[in-house]
């Protein structure tokens, strides 16, 4: 279980441009389930996702990952948790242009200190799993949108994380590719991964695989379980 209590996030604190993105959110995210953060733009979904994924710290409030309180951990430990526990799929894919598909997939593993041949082997397995075989040496920008999405998912899985975080993953995909993405999420759920998705796409939040939808608006969660 991931427990969030009274999470507040204020940007540009003390300045005229001060903005409160999250206003005291308290939720429990169940492990090995699919949770969707649903809400319009500016509702705080992405900010909440960043805080859950240890990418940003809350202004106030506390987070427990299983029994460990992680809010007060120093940056180095947060990075380690982020690297080992979370796999990220971003809205813009955030792949690095100019390098090959396989290098993009391998990238999160480089600082782990694992042998490069082992990393390459794992990356090739993932590439095969996501139907990108034959394209591992292609530059990432040569791939279609759907293929880039799959490469991004493969990269998120390279360190075998227990939690997958996806921010508006279907925003740039057509219906067919969005359904394909949800198919992959189903497979990951079957492998007992925890999946947290921020989306306002009905294909995502109305999917059969989703266990929990948290409706967000103006920085608060307005409904609980579906």
């Amino acid at each position, binding site marked *: 279980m991931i427990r969030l209590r009274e999470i507040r996030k204020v940007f540009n604190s003390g300045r005229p441009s001060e903005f409160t993105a999250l206003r005291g959110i308290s939720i429990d995210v169940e492990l090995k389930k699919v949770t969707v953060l649903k809400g319009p733009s500016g509702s705080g979904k992405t900010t909440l996702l960043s805080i859950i994924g240890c990418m940003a710290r809350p202004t106030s409030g506390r987070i427990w990952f299983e029994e460990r309180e992680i809010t007060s951990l120093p940056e180095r430990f947060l990075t380690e948790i982020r690297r080992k526990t979370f796999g990220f799929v*971003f809205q813009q894919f955030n792949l690095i242009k100019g390098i090959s598909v396989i290098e993009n997939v391998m990238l999160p593993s480089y600082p782990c200190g694992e042998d*490069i041949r082992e990393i390459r082997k794992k990356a090739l397995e993932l590439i095969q799993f996501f139907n990108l075989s034959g394209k591992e040496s292609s530059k990432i920008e040569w791939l279609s949108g759907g293929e880039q999405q799959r490469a991004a998912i493969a990269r998120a899985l390279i360190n075998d994380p227990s939690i997958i975080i996806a921010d508006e993953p279907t925003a740039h995909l057509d219906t067919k590719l969005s359904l394909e993405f949800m198919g992959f999420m189903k497979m990951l759920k079957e492998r007992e991964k925890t999946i947290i998705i921020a989306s306002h796409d009905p294909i995502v939040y109305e999917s059969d695989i989703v266990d929990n939808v948290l409706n967000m608006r103006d920085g608060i969660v307005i409904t609980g379980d579906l």
Partner: protein
Amino acid sequence: MNRLRNILDFTISSLMRRKGRNIALIVVYTFVVFILASVIFFTEALRREATTILRDAPEIVVQRVIAGRHDLIPLRYIDKIKAIPGVRSVKGRLWGYYFDPLSGSNYTLIVVDPRNSLSGVNHGDIKEGTIIIGSGISRSRIVHEGDTMPFRSFDGIPLYLKVKDVLSSESAIIAADVILISEKDYKKLSGIPSGYCTDLVISVANTKEIPTIARKITEVLPDTRPIVRDEILRTYDSVLNWRSGIILMIFWGALAAFIIFAWDRATGLSAEEKREIGILKAIGWETSDVIMMKFWEGIVISLTSFLTGMILAYLHVFFSSYSLFKPVLLGWSVLYPEFRLTPFIDTYQIATLLFLVVIPYTVATIVPSWRAATVDPDSVMK
């Protein structure tokens, strides 16, 4: 270890994708190092060459000065100097210049002391009517051993002297324009009156006494000027030392170019690079990993350029006859010496250059990346 290797691996493939930009960077950087290293190699080798030659120079040379100019010195001064305690020997030297209208250049005429030798050749037997010439003269006048060279004496009478030998090019730095001549022929050519010579050469028993003896000479003979060998060495040192004179100007020029270049690099972190740093942080790279990557990037570029620039400079100075600097740095001589400098590398100077160019560049690469790497990784989510 694996972590280091993996990051280095990524650094290299990261450099490869900006091939054009990085090659341009290496070319400019290499050129700057090439100029700086050429200056260092060239001046240091030249300084060493001069020092080696001057090591055998007389400890004190005494010249007579009239109206502030060097004049002929009377031979009777020899006894006065010999009387100074600590002086081992005093000898008169005859030498001067001769303008050759045919080649449009000045030659240095030296009357050879039979007990002296220049560049290992024994010139003891230069008989009247013969000369030994420097390689520069041989080249410009196309005269060789056995040929006769015409001269015009001070009173307009032609004088024909036979070339007995040509000095080896090893001593060309000082002897390219030299003619070794017999005393009688020199006097015929220059018109120096008897009882006079060009200057006096003094050797002393104890080198520590040189300054004292030099002072005493000026006391005994107030119209003379003693020139101490160490002073000549110091002059060479300050003229050719890479931290002074024209060399310093070239050095600072190249260094300024390098600073502008490094500054541009330091402030020029593109939006694309910042975004990439954000992505790396978001997918689990620590700030230190990003810095290590940028450090390697800086090291790969700067060391490649440094080593290439060094090798090119070495080839330029020691194997291609320092073609770029020759007209600027070898002085006013018309007959440029044709000689190869002895390859020599001063590790202290190389270390200084390394410190001056590699470290600032690497820091210039790391600092902006470090600033970008300390931002929250969630910046890529926005």
